[in-house]
């Protein structure tokens, strides 16, 4: 039937760009990839100041409508609302946990260095997802979590006077009425059709060493960012177990 890889290659054709992370995640979502949880390398944040400063890398948040065909459509209003509520919920979370956050400028105003580290992170993050959380383990890694962006990232830390970089990725696929109906119909015929869901993960990079010191993949089924209350809950889940000051 409609399989994940097929759809992601269709998306690639539509937008004429390599499917990359988005397709990888969509595939995981549609084929059911259940592993989640956090990898925590440090218990306490380190900073020369009293409390650590987080540099919030532009959160990558998108909301899709999963149409009857299985082709997802980006939903602009949901996406805008999710981005706004996420930013507010993150600010509240930081206030409660007593760390300072700084935001990168808009994507269009990033420096070449920031863009290249964003791209590097996207490669490292998707590798962690597919090879640490995913079923295909790298034999030579032997389960050791020692991923890093390299010490060059320290320049960004100095530019913003920040101790850690916080990356977040969130995708939600909401099944349309037609999709739900089709999946019900399919279920009666004994065929399972994906009806959407969400994928969220976040990670913390030490801006002195470049090491990935914390990485969390949120369990699916508990995310929602389009209203303030649920955004608070989702942020709490996404950053559950994150290292703290003290």
């Amino acid at each position, binding site marked *: 039937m409609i399989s994940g890889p097929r759809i992601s290659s269709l998306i690639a054709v539509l937008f004429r760009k390599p499917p990359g992370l988005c397709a990888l995640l969509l595939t995981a979502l549609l084929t059911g990839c259940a592993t989640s949880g956090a990898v925590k390398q440090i218990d306490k944040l380190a900073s020369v100041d009293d409390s650590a400063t987080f540099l919030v890398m532009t959160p990558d948040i998108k909301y899709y409508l999963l149409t009857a065909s299985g*082709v997802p459509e*980006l939903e*602009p209003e949901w996406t805008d609302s999710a981005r706004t509520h996420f930013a507010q919920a993150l600010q509240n979370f930081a206030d409660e946990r007593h760390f300072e956050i700084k935001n990168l400028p808009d994507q269009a105003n990033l420096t070449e260095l920031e863009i290249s580290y964003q791209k590097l992170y996207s490669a490292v993050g998707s590798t962690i997802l597919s090879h640490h959380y995913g079923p295909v383990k790298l034999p030579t890694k032997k389960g050791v979590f020692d991923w890093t962006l390299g010490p060059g990232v320290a320049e960004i830390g100095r530019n913003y006077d920040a101790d850690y970089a916080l990356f977040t990725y969130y995708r939600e696929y909401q099944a349309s009425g037609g999709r739900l109906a*089709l999946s019900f119909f399919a279920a009666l015929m004994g065929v399972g059709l994906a009806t959407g869901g969400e994928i969220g993960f976040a990670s913390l990079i030490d801006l002195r060493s470049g090491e990935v010191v914390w990485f969390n993949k949120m369990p699916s089924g508990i995310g929602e960012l389009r209203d303030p209350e649920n955004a608070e809950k989702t942020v709490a889940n996404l950053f559950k177990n994150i290292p703290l000051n003290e």
Partner: protein
Amino acid sequence: MLRILCFVYLCCSIALAAAEMKQAATGANDQAESSKLAIPQPRIPPGYQPIDRNTEKGLWMELEDYELSIQQSALLITDEPINAYVRNAACRVAGEYCGDLRVYVMRNPGFNAMMTANGVMQIWTGLLVRVSSEDELAAVIGHELAHYTQLHTLERLRRIQSNLATSSVIDLLIGLPLSQMAAVANIMSFNREQEEEADLLGVRFMHDSGYDPRAAVRVWEMLVEEEANAAAKSEAANIFTQTHPLSEQRIQTISDFVEKNYPDAATTTPDSSSHLAILNRYYLLLMEDQIDTNRYGRTETMLKHHRELGVNPGLIDFFYGEMYRQRKAEGDLERARQAYERAIQSDDTIAEAYRNLGYIQLKLDRPELARARFRKYLELEPDADDRAMIEFYLEE
């Protein structure tokens, strides 16, 4: 009782799914069944903005991110003269749609141009080395612009959605994915219809902006010839020809369209001067990636073509040398040496020809000759990046 309930829900499911498909199909089916060879009309006005709340606005939002990724790509060519050349041609073809286009020249040796629904046009460097004149460049631009004014991406998206949704229902009923296969075939034939419309409207744009509409015929003929040569040498097909099926039939249709609608269009030899100036100025940048594809059949076809076009002989011979040096077939070392020798005797030679001739002489075990060439290279290019390397060879 349960059975009846199930049946009722099943009917509702199909109705609901069908309603959504129908909504998705709207617009996909209203493509005018105009008589063949009639002049197509653009479907959107200049300054167009997305109307449809979901599919189209979502697509544009996604494409904004995509455009940003192009702007931040390491493969984006930023040299102003080459951009100005392509942008001016695009603007002239686009006429009143000029303000809706953003043109990006991308470094890629393949023959391709791409158009997104929000007006982002990408022209690959591989296209610039293949066309012979500004008119031929304009032919490709006209074709891509037509995809934009006919909302082809959106149409295709809707068609895929409606076909896949319909076929999912049918496949569930028959229990085999047959209908999905038919749906994919249908989408491909739909793509061919779009390509034909883009061909003809593209020719109209060219004609209206004063370019030679026959250049469209020439550019596709050139591509067919290149693919035939490449196939003869067992080289993989070009990405553009994978997505744009070329055939004698397609070229004939364009040719008939021009003869029918624009019989008075100029038949004189096209003016290649503006294109030639760009080729000469950026030849190293443009051809370097082509050499690295290791597709020698294509490279040789291009070099022959460029020599006929009038590209500086020093540059052509240099790249013959590069091609042989990289190919390393029987006798290629000697062929490379001869090509570089010809290159350095040219008035318009480049320093790199001396350096690479030096490397060939080293391989031929003639260290004295090699040193002489290396010295000349450093004399012409004192700030060369590889100066330390060359000095190492000089001291050896």
